[in-house]
């Protein structure tokens, strides 16, 4: 019920709708809750609505931190 997934916006449509790619399947979703959605953006899809945009820079930063946290056991925060 709470599960929401990252999907890629493939095409913007009229009336604040957009086509997204969900694991290879195209689906029409409502993007009215997120300002300025653009093609190529990744959004979190929940019950047919985009509820937020994903930030690539932040995602890369988290991944870098994850790798760092793993290689230095015992390292202080």
């Amino acid at each position, binding site marked *: 019920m709470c599960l929401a997934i990252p999907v890629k916006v493939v095409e913007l449509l009229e009336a604040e709708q957009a086509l997204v790619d969900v694991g290879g399947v195209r689906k029409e979703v409502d993007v009215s809750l997120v300002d300025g959605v653009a093609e190529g953006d990744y959004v979190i899809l929940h019950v047919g609505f985009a509820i937020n945009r994903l930030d690539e820079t*932040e995602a890369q930063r988290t991944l870098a931190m994850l790798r760092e946290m793993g290689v230095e056991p015992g390292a202080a925060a």
Partner: protein
Amino acid sequence: MKYVDEFRDGKVARNLARTIAAEVQPERRYHLMEFCGGHTHAISRYGLRDLLPPEVRFIHGPGCPVCVLPVGRIDSAIELARDHGAILCSYGDPLRVPASGRMSLLRAKAEGADIRMVYSSADALKIARENPDREVVFFAIGFETTTPPTAVALRQARAEGLKNFSVFVNHVLTPSAIQNILESPEVRELGTVPLDGFIGPSHVSTIIGSRPYEFFAEEFQKPVVIAGFEPLDVLQSVLMLVRQLNEGRAEVENQFSRAVTREGNLKAQALVAEIFELRDRFEWRGLGEVPYSALRIRDAYRDFDAEVRFELPYRSVPDHKACECGAILRGLKQPQECKVFGTVCTPDNPLGSCMVSAEGACAAYYTYGQFTKITAVAEAS
């Protein structure tokens, strides 16, 4: 970047688990409540419990909207379809939740009530447009993630002047539930639920932001780490919590920064505030009546409120006597401690709500629990 596979790397997971094991202090226990059912699901599905040292314990909280919906509310939904002849549109998950008298929405449907499963509030609107001579009610449930989509449907219904559409609102609020748990005698006085920190909800926080949790960190001196749903997200959040506890800090940290900001989604918040207001009290399964913990439709949108339109009274109904969902949702018990777990009560034939949705603790344990040694994290490597 797909924002999924990158956060499931088995090698990184094992490294992280090693780092956590190296940093936990052996004399100490780390009781971490994952509030959100999505995390309960991820922890079970990826076998994260087995990766972590025994000092770290997960306590499952009440963050599954299907699990916290009380029997009385399901009864009312059935009543709308059966006694008022409405077309009741519901998300899939609530359909199998047990109601009074061995009923459920699914059973009522089999007996002829017009109950339809929808994927989104927009589908319910569509059904209303297609059936102008029937009353169509959307059974709206969920936390702060599901509320904005309901608000969009209400705004749209009003813009179109739809006369046969209304919403039975059961939207609940995360911060009030967390506060209720922290103030419960089990946590405060009796210490039967030791609670050292929270793994904060991911998607709820994309909407409300991380700011609402600052109160808990300060007032109750409990660290909160907002965590994404993927296995690496959960593990990293555990490490962040372990470090906070080791250092005696109680702060709000945001592991899920790729989607969550301090402010959250302001556009969605403004829309929700325009259409909904706080209810004085709302009954939760497992927590009882919690003040200011749910929403109702504002007067300006009153015409679309199913509770007003059908003069729906609320009747509280106790859970099945054998069911321990209440204790599980408060972190008091684990699913295996319920006598009927896995025997009388299974996902195919649920006796209580925690066995219904994939995010319910009982369903998560039942589905993945028997195979705890096989971790999907290992599979992913």
